[in-house]
C-alpha cells in the first residue's frame, strides 16, 4: 500500500547522522577558505581586464555568490535544528499572562527562535491574544520575527562584517521590545477588530496534541528541510541582489552615494525609511545592495534604517494584519516601529 519512504523517520542509526553532519561541516570549512583564490581564478579565465569596471564587478560577483550561499546553508541548517525545539504553541504558553516589560523581552527573543511564516501571522496573532498574551507583548513577537532573521544576519555578517551583524541583531531586538512596550502602554485593545475581541473574551481554544518527541536525527532532517525551503525561496533574490551590488560596486562613482546617502544629509534617514515601507523584498534581496551602498560611502545608519524598514514594515503584511487590526491600530504600529528605526538610523550616523 505504501511505496515511498516517509521522510521524518530515518532508519539510519544516530551515529551516522552525527558523523555526516560533522563531515559536512569540515568539508564546508575547507571549501570556504579557498573561495578567494577560486573566484580570482575564475575571473582570470574570462577575457576581461581584472582592473576594469567589468573585472571588478565580476570578481565581486563570483566571490560573493558562493560565499553567501555557503554561509546561508550552514546557518539556516543550524537555525532549523534550533527551531525544532520551539513551536508557536510552546511560545504562547510561555508568554500568556506575562506582564509587560519582561514579556516584551521574552517575546522578542522567542520571535527569533520560534518557527514562523508570515502567512500564519493572523492565526498566530489571534492565538496569542486569545490565550491572554498582552497585545504589546504579541507585537514584540510580531516585530522581531521577520526583522531579526538568520538570512539577514548571515548576509550582513558575510557581506558587511560581524560588527554590523551584531549591531543589527541588538537594535532589531531593541526596537521590537520598545515598540511592543509602547503599544502595550497605549492600551489599544479596543482597536482590534470586533470579532477578534469576541474570541478574546470567550477564549476556549483547543490545545494541539503534544507531538511525539523528536530524535536528534529528526531535528537534523528539519534543518535540511529548512535549507531546502529557504533556498527555493531566496536563491533568485540573492543572485539578483548580488548582481545589482556588483554593478554598483563596479560602476557607480564613489561620491554620488556619499552625497545622497551620506551622514551629512539629515533627511536621508527619514527618506530611507519612507522608501523602505512600500518596498517588498526579503533580506536576501536587499543586503547585497546594502553592502555595495556602504562601500560607496553611504552612511551606515541610513543604510541600516533602509534595510530594517524594508524587512520589518511591509505592505503585504499590513494588508494581512488588516483582517484583525483596525486601520488606526495599524497606523500606530507603523508609526511606532518607524520611529524606532529612525532613532537607530540617526544614532548610527552620529556614532560612526
Amino acid at each position: 500500500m505504501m511505496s515511498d519512504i516517509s521522510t521524518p523517520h530515518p532508519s539510519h542509526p544516530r551515529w551516522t547522522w552525527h558523523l555526516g553532519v560533522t563531515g559536512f561541516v569540515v568539508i564546508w570549512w575547507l571549501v570556504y577558505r579557498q573561495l578567494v583564490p577560486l573566484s580570482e581564478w575564475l575571473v582570470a579565465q574570462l577575457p576581461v581586464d581584472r582592473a576594469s569596471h567589468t573585472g571588478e564587478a565580476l570578481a565581486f560577483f563570483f566571490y560573493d555568490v558562493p560565499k553567501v550561499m555557503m554561509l546561508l546553508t550552514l546557518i539556516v541548517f543550524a537555525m532549523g535544528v534550533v527551531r525544532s525545539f520551539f513551536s508557536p504553541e510552546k511560545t504562547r504558553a510561555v508568554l500568556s499572562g506575562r506582564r509587560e516589560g519582561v514579556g516584551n523581552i521574552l517575546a522578542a527573543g522567542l520571535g527569533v527562535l520560534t518557527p514562523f511564516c508570515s502567512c500564519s501571522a493572523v492565526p498566530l496573532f489571534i492565538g496569542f491574544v486569545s490565550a491572554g498574551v498582552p497585545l504589546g507583548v504579541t507585537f514584540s513577537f510580531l516585530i522581531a520575527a521577520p526583522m531579526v532573521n538568520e538570512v539577514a544576519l548571515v548576509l550582513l555578517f558575510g557581506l558587511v562584517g560581524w560588527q554590523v551583524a551584531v549591531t543589527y541583531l541588538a537594535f532589531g531586538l531593541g526596537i521590537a521590545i520598545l515598540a511592543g512596550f509602547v503599544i502595550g502602554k497605549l492600551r489599544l485593545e479596543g482597536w482590534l477588530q470586533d470579532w477578534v475581541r469576541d474570541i478574546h473574551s470567550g477564549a476556549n481554544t483547543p490545545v494541539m496534541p503534544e507531538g511525539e518527541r523528536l530524535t536528534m536525527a529528526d531535528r537534523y532532517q528539519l534543518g535540511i528541510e529548512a535549507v531546502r525551503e529557504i533556498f527555493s525561496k531566496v536563491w533568485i533574490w540573492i543572485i539578483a541582489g548580488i548582481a545589482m551590488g556588483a554593478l554598483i560596486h563596479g560602476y557607480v562613482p564613489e561620491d554620488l552615494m556619499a552625497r545622497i546617502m551620506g551622514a551629512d544629509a539629515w533627511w536621508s534617514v527619514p527618506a530611507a525609511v519612507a522608501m523602505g515601507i512600500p518596498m517588498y523584498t526579503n533580506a536576501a534581496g536587499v543586503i547585497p545592495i546594502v553592502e555595495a551602498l556602504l562601500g560607496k560611502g553611504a552612511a551606515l545608519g541610513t543604510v541600516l534604517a533602509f534595510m530594517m524598514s524594508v524587512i520589518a514594515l511591509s505592505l503585504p503584511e499590513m494588508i494581512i494584519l488588516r483582517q484583525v487590526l483596525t486601520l488606526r491600530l495599524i497606523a500606530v504600529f507603523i508609526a511606532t516601529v518607524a520611529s524606532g528605526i529612525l532613532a537607530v538610523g540617526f544614532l548610527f550616523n552620529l556614532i560612526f
Partner: protein
Amino acid sequence: MKTVKVYGPGCKRCDMTAEMIREAADRLSVEVVIEKVSDPREIAVAGVMSTPGIAVDGKLVHAGGLPDKAKLEEWLAA
C-alpha cells in the same frame, strides 16, 4: 466517510496539503471530503496558530508545515 478540514489562508502549502490528503485517501481507499478553511476567524477558533492545520472529523491533528505522509495515513486510517 471522513471529513478533513485544511486550515490555511490559501497559501501554496495549504493547497499542497490538501493534495497530499487526497492522495493518501486514494492510497488507503478511504472516502474523504476535504474542506479548505481560509476564513481567519474560523482558523483561529479551531486553535490553529501555524498553518496549514489539519482536522479529521473535527479533531485537530496537525498544525504548521506539510504533514508527514505516514502520519497522514495513520490519521485517515484511524
